[in-house]
């Protein structure tokens, strides 16, 4: 059975930091910029938005047609539990979906991809979502702080309506220590960058590519596009040279100077960049790397790619939709390196409580109920057995719209930690006529918000308490139409 990509979606946070600003703070030097997640973002929120984009592009019904969600990151949030169910809630996916989290390497997303490919090839599933997402914890003043960026990519694999077939996969692994973040460490550490470059990154990628070429009896010249894991610009150019890859082949997958080292999302983001531009018949070589392992994947683009482009939010739009972080202090607040020395206020109902288990799911699903007698939409469904408007007790389930406009708002400079002012609160009128109230995001001054402005509901991390995140919907000025 031919397994391939049936759709994909990406997410790059809006904020960018010029590496020269980080350099200025620590007497370092570097060119380019990194994508930086906002204070209410993490791998789960970024993955959720990428996943929604992938579902739209693949044109499947995620409430019934999605069977697996495999997730790869080296920025895992928890050792004991996974928050992947939150992504499933945003997708309103079935409870029969199979979740798995792959970690402990920036190529974890490729382990996820191979597992999903196998599930589809075996006939066990028809549609599976593979997500690579990264938001590394980097030490202030470290090389990683200078290089790492945040983002997520979701790839829908399946057997129907494939836009890029997977022709072959080859993996090469040795026991190699380059970067690590042990359970007791807050930050990623590295032994020696040049050792990583020459004996880790370069040797493993060359070996994986060689293995794939041997299996397919082909060479680098047989590929129209070459996508590499991108830890930094010089490592990429060194390996490209060793592979004899030319600039045309590398043209669409190189994003290191735009978004930084995206780890488990790095090579997949490159693949997305290539698929945005690829023509039917193009052949693509993708080479991952992480922690002494490299995967080489060969894909062939099909005729189906053109017809799906109108449902795509391409990488270029996310790159264009950006806002520069003004200085290192603002950046350090976003990464958490700089925290207000103020005890966070405990939320009234802790994130581990049954209350959030009951209501949180429906809130993230935007699941509401419409009164059969007066048609008022009650929300969330769990807490409403009686229509608040007319007292009716019979309802039809509905899903709220994600987009709308600002009915009214405020922007508060004083909010208790861990919230940070200025914090917008928005009363929104959704496009389906229902009203929704949520905190705002990416609203940093009164210039960023006004009545009747178009907004969209996105899932963000509202607070974290005792290490457990609370995810909910917030209003964002519509970012990409």
């Amino acid at each position: 059975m031919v397994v391939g990509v049936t759709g994909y979606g990406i997410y790059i946070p809006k904020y960018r930091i010029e590496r020269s600003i980080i350099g200025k703070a620590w007497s370092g030097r570097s060119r380019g910029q990194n994508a930086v997640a906002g204070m209410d973002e993490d791998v789960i929120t970024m993955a959720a938005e990428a996943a929604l984009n992938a579902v739209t592009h693949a044109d499947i019904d995620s409430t019934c047609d999605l069977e697996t969600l495999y997730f790869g990151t080296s920025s895992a949030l928890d050792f004991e539990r996974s928050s992947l169910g939150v992504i499933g809630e945003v997708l309103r996916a079935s409870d029969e979906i199979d979740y798995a989290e792959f970690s402990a390497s920036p190529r974890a997303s490729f382990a996820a991809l191979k597992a999903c490919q196998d599930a589809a090839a075996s006939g066990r599933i028809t549609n599976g979502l593979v997500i690579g997402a990264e938001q590394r914890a980097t030490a202030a003043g470290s090389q990683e702080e200078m290089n790492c960026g945040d983002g997520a990519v979701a790839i829908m694999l399946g057997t129907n309506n494939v836009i890029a077939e997977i022709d072959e996969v080859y993996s090469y692994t040795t026991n190699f220590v380059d970067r690590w973040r042990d359970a007791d460490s807050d930050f990623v550490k590295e032994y020696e960058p040049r050792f990583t470059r020459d004996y880790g990154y370069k040797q493993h990628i060359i070996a994986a590519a060689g293995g794939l070429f041997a299996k397919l009896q082909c060479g680098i010249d047989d590929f129209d596009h070459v996508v590499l894991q991108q830890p930094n610009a010089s490592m990429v150019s060194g390996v490209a040279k060793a592979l004899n890859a030319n600039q045309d082949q590398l043209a669409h997958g190189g994003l290191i100077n735009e978004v930084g080292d995206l780890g488990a999302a790095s090579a997949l983001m490159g693949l997305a960049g290539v698929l945005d531009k690829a023509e039917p018949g193009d052949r693509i070589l993708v080479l991952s790397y992480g922690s002494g392992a490299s995967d080489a994947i060969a894909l062939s683009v099909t005729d189906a790619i053109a017809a799906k482009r109108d449902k795509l939010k391409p990488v270029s739009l996310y790159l264009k939709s950006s806002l520069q972080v003004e200085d290192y202090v603002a950046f350090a607040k976003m990464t958490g390196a700089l925290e207000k020395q103020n005890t966070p206020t405990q939320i009234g109902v802790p994130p581990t409580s049954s209350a959030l288990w009951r209501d949180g799911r429906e809130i993230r699903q935007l699941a509401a109920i419409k009164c059969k007698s007066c048609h008022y939409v009650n929300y969330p469904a769990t807490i409403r057995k009686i229509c608040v408007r007319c007292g009716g007790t019979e309802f039809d389930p509905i899903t709220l719209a994600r987009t709308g406009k600002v009915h009214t708002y405020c922007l508060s400079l004083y909010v208790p930690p861990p919230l940070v002012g200025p914090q917008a609160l928005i009363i929104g009128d959704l496009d389906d006529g229902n009203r929704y109230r949520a905190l705002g995001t990416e609203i940093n001054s009164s210039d960023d918000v006004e009545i009747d402005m178009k907004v969209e509901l996105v899932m963000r991390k509202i607070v974290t308490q005792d290490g457990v995140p609370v995810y909910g919907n917030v209003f964002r000025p519509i970012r990409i139409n």
Partner: protein
Amino acid sequence: MGWNRVALVGAGMIPFGELFEKSWEVMLEESYLECLNSVDKGIDPKKIQAAWIGTARPELHGQGAQGGVSLVGHLGLAGIPCTRVENGCPTGSDALRNAAFGVASGIYDVALVAGYEKMRDAPTSGLLGIAMQGHPLLTLGETAMTMFAPKANRYMHEYGLTKEQMAMVAVKNRKNGVLDPYAQFRSEITVEDVLKSPTVCEPLNILDCCPQTDGAACLLICRADLADKFTDKPVYIAGMGCGTDYYYQHEVESYTSYEATVKSAKEAYSMAGITPDQLDLAEVHDCFSITEIIDYEDLGFCDRGEASQLIEKGVTEQNGDLPVNVSGGLLCKGHPLGATGVAQCAELYWHLRQEAGERQVEIKHGYGLQHNVGGRAISNSVVIILSNHTD
């Protein structure tokens, strides 16, 4: 209406402010003694048969669900029935309303009503912490400011209210407060001061907001037919109303009015059998300058969209046709939640008895109106109308 009339025969209050030197017990005790001493013909405390205490957020000063004994236990009245009332910002006024039910029903002849709030034993962050309580997603981030400020933005958008006009409310009330010995602030400010004061929550500046205040107030009420045992100048409860709107902000329909106020006002006017033009003064909820603007319309002082004209034309100034918040209001006198409604009624009591000194307004019809609105999604309101006559 078939109810026994209720009279106010005593009122006591302590000057509001940042009372770091006074415990909440002392605040209650002092306002109670003031109240007892205010009774013209005197009163034996043993005659008090029941009591109601209003306090909205005792958690702020480390007290939890303390119940009614938190009042009578400190006043030498332990033994009599006492109930704690919490109803958001209308807590104090609702304590009076419920006490009035007790007397109107014929169960009690004489009852005590007290309201207090000890807000400055906690840092400001304590009050802000309210934003993290309630439903962890549906209400997270709701402070007093983030509940009232969205109404300001919508009202400005729909009716063209300016920040200058909003500021005029604060200027008026600060001017009134200069004459009120119970007010937290005793100095005037200008429109420019308000506009130039630091922004707290767009579109509200710090001088558009009431301060955090410690305070307490007490009232003595009795059966109207027994009032002459205590005074020759009783004040009567003419009407009372309590209204609610929806619980969550996303369920609230109007962001240019407080529907809870509209409902409580309608009930109170109907019970009193009067219209707004018969009011000699009003003490209304002005926790923020925008609140008083919207109150004018919700309480029927003017039509929708015309509140700015009332403030522009000076109608609600101390010497205007309908003086509003001559005490200084919440913006100037302070807003110790549970005390506020009780204190507003004390202010009406003094005016209706011609005892308000320098700030006395002209009494023509003999009616004064008290109003609070607040609580979750600003969906609780109480309106009480007092009169200096029984019909």
